[in-house]
């Protein structure tokens, strides 16, 4: 797994490559949680994520909960059909807004 985190115009952009599973979930969570202390708006680009395990889905939900508690929001971008299907069957999808591109997600934040 490779993670890049950038902050631009008060939005944290997180780009992840590879698989999020029990081996990588802990590291990912602690890196992202650090960023969240100073920011309310997060866009996660999952274009290059090939697999999300149970542990991985739980990291996403932790981020959602963290942001939700302080009135913030996380938007997911480019979730593959397979991951989307898994998220739907396991109920995780109900917590997230999904967008086809970073631009669409940004628009959502600007409108809000």
């Amino acid at each position: 797994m490779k993670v890049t985190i950038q902050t631009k115009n008060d939005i944290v952009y997180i780009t992840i490559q590879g698989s999020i599973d029990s081996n990588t979930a802990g590291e990912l969570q602690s890196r992202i949680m650090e960023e969240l202390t100073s920011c309310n708006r997060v866009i996660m680009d999952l274009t290059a994520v090939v697999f999300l395990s149970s542990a991985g889905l739980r990291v996403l939900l932790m981020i959602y909960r963290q942001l939700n508690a302080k009135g913030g929001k996380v938007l997911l971008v480019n979730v593959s059909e397979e991951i989307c299907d898994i998220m739907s069957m396991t109920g995780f999808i109900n917590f997230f807004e999904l967008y086809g591109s970073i631009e669409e997600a940004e628009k959502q934040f600007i409108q809000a």
Partner: protein
Amino acid sequence: MSTLDNRIDFYPTNEYNGIKYRRGRVLPFGATLVPNGVNFSVFSSAATSCTLVLFNKNEEEPYAEIPLPDEFRVGNVYAIIVFGLDYENIEYGYRMDGPHDPQNGHRFDRNIVLSDPYAKAIGGRDIWRDASGLNRNYPFRSRLVFDDFDWEEDNPLETPMEDLIIYEIHVRGFTSHPSSGVRHRGTFAAIREKIPYLIELGINCVELMPIYEFDEFEHSRENSDTGDLLVNYWGYSTLNFFAPKAGYAATGKYGMAVDELKTLIKELHRNGIEVILDVVFNHTAEGDHRGPTISFRGIDNKTYYMLTPDGYYFNFSGTGNTLNCNHPVVRNMVLDCLRYWASEYHIDGFRFDLASILGRAQDGSPLNNPPLLESLAHDPILAKCKLIAEAWDAGGLYQVGAFPAYGRWAEWNGKYRDTVRKFLKGDHNTVGQLSQCMQGSPEMYLHRGTTAGINFITCHDGFTLYDLFAYNGKHNEANGENNQDGCNDNFSWNCGWEGETDDPAVNLLRHRQIKNALTILMLSQGVPMILMGDEMGRTQMGNNNTYCHDSEFNWLDWSFVQVNFDLLSFARHIINFRRQHPILRNKEHYSNHDCRDSGYADVTFHGTKAWHADWSESNTVFAFMLDGYHAKNGSIKDDAIYVAANMHWDALDFELPQLSENRKWHLSVNTSMVPPETFYPLQGEPELENQSNFIVGGRSVIVLIGK
């Protein structure tokens, strides 16, 4: 770092081949995630040592075996915390050393890796009928699960028992047919896609046939005539009581069955539908002394099984062994298990397969005051759960009407099933019994109320409702047992032709009989249960014991929604009729008196002449009237309801009882008519022109409401 991570005792004290561990906590049993590690705890009354065996998922050989030092044992419980485990990708088991002395009840074998009786997930059958793991040394592997599902505001629904309408579902059967149109056929996720159908049908509870992990390949064999593989399709053979069947989850292959099942339950609850599990605590999948050693036998044979004095297995379940339910340790396991499903999965109730076994002592004799049944009835966590017994077993104990209830237990009312079937086929000597059935069987449940009985005409065991009127005898040849298996007392009638026919008169009569049956079921006091697909005329082609077929014998053909739309629309109507009329859902029995001064007793019986029920042996006609002023103990004012059932072959003129206070009879149902005149929508019932008489067609039922 949280306070929990800072605990001073979560550090390793020992190391073995690079794996760090320490003494564990004995409770809870099973494997539990703790900071930086996993706590393992297992009980055995007679093992002399215990080794924890760790595997990487899907690898044949273990990567580590950690013998537990004797100081890690408290009493008869071994506990260890292992640090740094990749909890999503490990599988574990135990080797137990101890005596191999079958005559004295011990069958230890340290060569076998054993599954944890308290494992929360089992690997090995992650995908339904995927045979790739069949020949592994350790086939059913204990796994770890997350227990942090986000239920949000969800809770068990606690629907009053008397308001329940149960729909019995087999997870695969419900959506496996290609016509189901779902994304992942035969799965928990697929049931979720069918929730709109369930809502429209009007049921408010699904009872899932066994969903605890089982092995569909158990006793699998090829049918020599057809070449079909016969499997353990129904799943009444539990491998582990805490693990959901992974192969029933579309995400089972990703290890997410737990989340998928919980999501289904949450979604059903959100739509007002309860979930009851059909649980099998009478035996396990290990069979008798010739069966495989998977878990219980190798961990503590003498504790978990009822054994004969010479160390063989009592067989009250008809499947080889009998779980030793009233042994204090096993009793606790059953309790732990049900508490787990009620609290972790938000399950609303349980139906206990062959529940009479739960009332047997360790030597097999029936107990007067069975501790397990009493514990379950009084358990604080299960306090609002529905507890339903199949009140018989394969050892000859038959307790319908006499199951030790402790004010809580309900029973599958087998007597209701047989009586209604006999009445519908026109048998003599049934009307008196039928009057009891319609009232919620007060002759059996007088002091337990109407909700002690689960009324059903069909269930997974036996004919479907359509087949009940299409076959005189069972046709189980496809089961490969020369038609010797399955029940012979079906009380069925084929309506003039055995099996499928083009004869429109026969087919019309069959549909009418199905409507008659559904009407009687929905207008009886007690809790009705419908078998999946009966509302649309599902057939098993005359097979009354389809436990082994993963095929169209069992798969619900959704094209029947269109083909038999008259049945489905009728079922929707009659279910909603029940839901709209509280007088049909009293908790207390009718008093047979006019306690409300309405001018009529709560229930009155009639025949072709009003006020004159005919109880004679040859009579096949029955009518009754409910006065809605008595609904829910008089707290709600409902309409009057009149039902006339004519199982004579010819039409008969029924004199109607006269209503007080200018109320008039309106027609809701007349099964002798063809659509759209079979039933009228709620609140759209036409007033009868003739308020004093009604000609009820042969083998037909009418329902009138007085308002």
